[in-house]
């Protein structure tokens, strides 16, 4: 995401050359002007330098890079102009192979795991996922950047996926929260039922939906254990 006030052209030195990051949504004229300003300051340093022009994954990026590369060669006598090297992509098989040999034993997790009762007036915030083995009383508030799992009664307020992760979910053995937020969605006045089993809430078609865990197993679709 590029903010409105971000400069359209950024320049930094990399090894024996320069790395130019461009906003491809701006006009070619503007980009050229901005580059001229930056390269004029470099003077003789630009001569024969290796330049990488990074326009992200934009459509027609090659064409833009060629045009601007030609412009730089002509105006400032730079050396080779290229696009950034492609990132190495690890094939899925390799990942699975690694997981099979317990690759996750080396993973460090951001999960906050608590044991005991969360009482009224207590606020618990987790950067990522939050697991509570115990009950969450009415009046308590639990907030997580990722998923929330409560191995007990969930009677308080819960916010999963703060601030805007709509893929987060909330699961509780006894799901009766006073209010549920997932990402930017809010649902209130759930609960009341007491005899239902394990339930979870997730965002379906832009609204929070509570489903029985065993009937619509949310993880059943994931064929392979993955680190989250």
């Amino acid at each position, binding site marked *: 995401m590029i903010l409105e006030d971000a400069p359209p052209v950024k320049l930094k030195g990399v090894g024996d050359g320069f790395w130019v990051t461009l906003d491809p949504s701006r006009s070619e004229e503007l980009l050229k002007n901005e580059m001229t300003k930056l390269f004029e300051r470099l003077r003789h340093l630009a001569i024969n330098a290796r330049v990488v022009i990074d326009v992200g994954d934009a459509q027609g990026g090659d064409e833009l890079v060629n045009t601007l590369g030609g412009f730089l060669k002509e105006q400032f006598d730079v050396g080779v102009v290229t696009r950034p090297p492609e990132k190495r992509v690890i094939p899925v098989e390799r990942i699975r192979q690694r997981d099979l040999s317990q690759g996750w034993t080396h993973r460090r997790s951001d999960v906050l795991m608590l044991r005991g*009762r969360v*009482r*009224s*007036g*207590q606020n618990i915030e987790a950067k990522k996922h939050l697991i509570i083995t115990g*009950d969450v*009383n*009415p*009046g308590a508030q639990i907030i997580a950047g990722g998923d929330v799992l409560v191995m007990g009664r969930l*009677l308080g307020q819960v916010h999963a996926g703060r601030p805007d992760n709509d893929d987060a979910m909330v699961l509780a053995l006894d799901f009766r929260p006073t209010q549920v937020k997932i990402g930017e969605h809010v649902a209130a006045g759930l609960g009341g039922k007491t005899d239902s089993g394990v339930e979870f809430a997730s965002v379906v078609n832009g609204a929070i939906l509570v489903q029985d865990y065993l009937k619509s197993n949310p993880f059943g679709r994931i064929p392979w254990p993955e680190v989250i």
Partner: protein
Amino acid sequence: MEGRIIVVTSGKGGVGKTTATASIGAALALEGKRVAVIDMDIGLRNLDVVLGLENRIVFNIVDVVNGRCNLRQAAIRDRRIENLFLVPASQSDNKDVLTTAGVDRAAKQLRKEFDYVIMDSPAGIERGFENSVTAADEAIVVCTPDVSSIRDADRVIGLLYSRSITPRLVVNRIIPEMVAKGDMLSHEDVMEVLSIDLAGLVPMDEQVVIATNTGMPLVLQNDSKAGQAFRRIARRLNGEPDLPVEVPSVKGGMWNRFTQKLGLK
């Protein structure tokens, strides 16, 4: 041996803190202990009225803490129950005249003089609550079987735990008929949420209103169910922790049913 300071608190107002303080204090005194009950509700004193000692107030807890009198001058001795003393609150000041340091100083003296010091905390969790719990060794949380009272009690329990005070619960004003019909939360429902040790269960009792208005200690009335419940709570506090908790029920015991049939009651 130094005395124990027990704070009676609830978060919510009007659940029976003052009645519980007066009754448990009186019951402990009847057990033969030297007991002081202290009204920490500065500005809104009630405990003196409940104990019927209003007309004998000269000094109060604010005077003791701020050094205007000594403890013996402020403590009013109850004439009906031996070993029961009241340190009343001030009616003219507000909660900010006391500091936790001042209360801690006074508490040291109270521990020396008495076996039990029962502090009646004001409602709320602000300054008055802080002053009441600062010196406490133990706490009794009073709640009634309704949702708002439980919510507040839960908050207070959290605050007490954060001060390393392990509270015990008194569920007050249980109406067995309503519990049986499912219209009122049972003590099990309350315990499910609060999950702390139970000190006792107290049934709803008209005698409480009479006792409060006349200033006659509840525990002296043998026909008061609430009074008897408070006496059992006092025994549990005073070295009989395993005394079984009696659950208020609709039907009385065998003897009651028998006498009812004969038309004696």
